[in-house]
């Protein structure tokens, strides 16, 4: 599957395209099929996202999992500071990345 990601313009937070807007959680990302370019083009005009890109991911029961480790680290947060990730209370969150 193809999903869209980027950084939120005002805060820099990592964000994922949900079909109608942007979420901080990769679980909310939707498969954009071949519509990625068109969505990003429209979003560029709206000036909400920085560096929007289309990436590969696989569908899992817990939602999309980005294909590349870099995007999985982006989705979670730094693997060396669990307290700074999106799932600070989940001790196993890091395993999902690697």
């Amino acid at each position, binding site marked *: 599957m193809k999903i869209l990601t980027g950084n939120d*313009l005002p805060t*820099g937070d990592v964000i994922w395209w949900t079909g109608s807007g942007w979420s901080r959680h990769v679980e909310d990302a939707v498969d954009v099929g071949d519509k990625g370019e068109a969505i990003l083009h429209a979003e560029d005009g709206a000036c909400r996202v920085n560096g929007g890109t289309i990436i590969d991911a696989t569908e899992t029961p817990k939602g999309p999992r980005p*294909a590349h*480790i870099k995007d999985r*680290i982006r989705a979670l947060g*730094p*693997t*060396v*500071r669990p307290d*700074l990730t999106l799932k600070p209370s989940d001790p196993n969150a890091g395993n999902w990345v690697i």
Partner: protein
Amino acid sequence: MYRYDKYDQAIVDARVEEFRDQARRRLAGQLTDDQFKPLRLKNGLYLQLHAYMLRVAIPYGTLDSRQMRMLGHIARKYDRGYGHFTTRQNLQYNWIKLEEAGDILADLASVEMHAIQTSGESIRNLSSDQYAGAAADEVCDPRPWAELIRQATTFHPEFSYLPRKFKIAVTAADEDRAAIRLHDIGLKLVKNDAGKLGFEVYIGGGMGRTPFVAPLIRPFLPADDLFSYIEAALRVWNRNGRRDNIHKQRIKILVHELGQEEFTRQVEAEWQHILANGSNVPREEFDRIAAFFEPPPFETGLTDEIDRTDPDFALWVDQNVKAHKAPGYAIVNISLKPVGGIPGDATAGQIELIADLGEKYSFDELRVTHAQNIVLPHVRKADLYTLWQILDENGLATANLDLISDIIACPGLDYCSLANARSIPVAQKIATRFADLGRQRELGELKLKISGCINACGHHHAGHIGILGVDKKGTENYQLLLGGSGAEDASLGKITGPGFSEDGVVDAVERVTDKYLAVREEGERFLDTYRRVGFEPFKEAIYG
């Protein structure tokens, strides 16, 4: 230390307002990312893996407690409670919001700091010896010259659109603590036979994709001629630098392609041309700057005795405290490398505490080192024990300076968008494997440096043991290098062979140190042994 005059302050304040307006326009959708990016980079604001990252310059690594305290304040108020000290004597914040970046720059400006020229194709923050002005082995304080170059080149139109970034380091001691030969220009202050002060000028060093140790281009440049000579070198590069190929833009490539002799000839010719027009900074201006670097009012008649009854304290003194030029004083290194910690990270509280300690015990002066540690340059020996107790209570007394756990590591894939592999977990695992301080001291001086990609921000080429993260079909892989040095005996490490997994590279490091212990001779450091016995015995130990 240098203090802004009203012109300096006005320039920096104006720059803050200019940036606020640029950021406002970007947020309002009046600027595209492509339009805004060069503007934010001119103010040290990057977009990294998780957020915006702000790189703050600490000129030649010197700051006072007021400035250090502000760095802590910013970490607490605008970041997530910490800051990251880097190999270029800068500080990086990893979790910055664009909405607040203008306020941060304004806070920095209020204590004479900024993020100008910490990015882009400019002359970057000048680096220097972290012991400058305090070291027992220096001919004089190198910082006035660093400040002179900083002032003369900042916003200089000729240096505003260079072919690529440009890094200058200035030192004044035989022991090179600033890796001068791995800079675009490395300057070492020396006295000639007639007692006259001048520079050894090294040009064309650097790491990254194509590493070079800079050759000596001029053995003695009279100190008064510093600016014009640098201008000549930059001009030759500006004229001939390869702007057509991103991998060939640095001055090191030009020096290599022209050859040292021809490059030197061109610089000398250009220099004569410049001298004819008299473009050196006037002596009075240098004297004005130098006056800011007068030594602090050291007390006289102090004791040189240190009470070493507490063994942990004695260990710390042996490892982290260095000789000072004034009797009764010492240089204190605060390690930011606790076992299992993130090299270079400090919490807001630690930063503020270190600021207080600098104010109380070190004439209000602090330094940041290229090894990602902090220095209190002027501490009375009589205060060492009290100081150590406070550091110890706050997790800042790790006695590992220059030992295997004093690892330099770039942020790697945990924070950096250019990375191929993570650096920090590897550093943590190695430090944990070698946690026993007795074992570390047995190994002696051993500089281990890790980068998460070929850009070499973690100086892996210059590590006695270097580690380079690479991408191997989508997984992290680590190459091991041996025999590099960033010091006065500068050399580049050699890749040992096929790379390793994260755990595999930790084991490989241990096989290297085991081999070293087995073959070393009395008084040798790891690097000495390596140079004596060569690469092969180690390679054999690693791959069997």
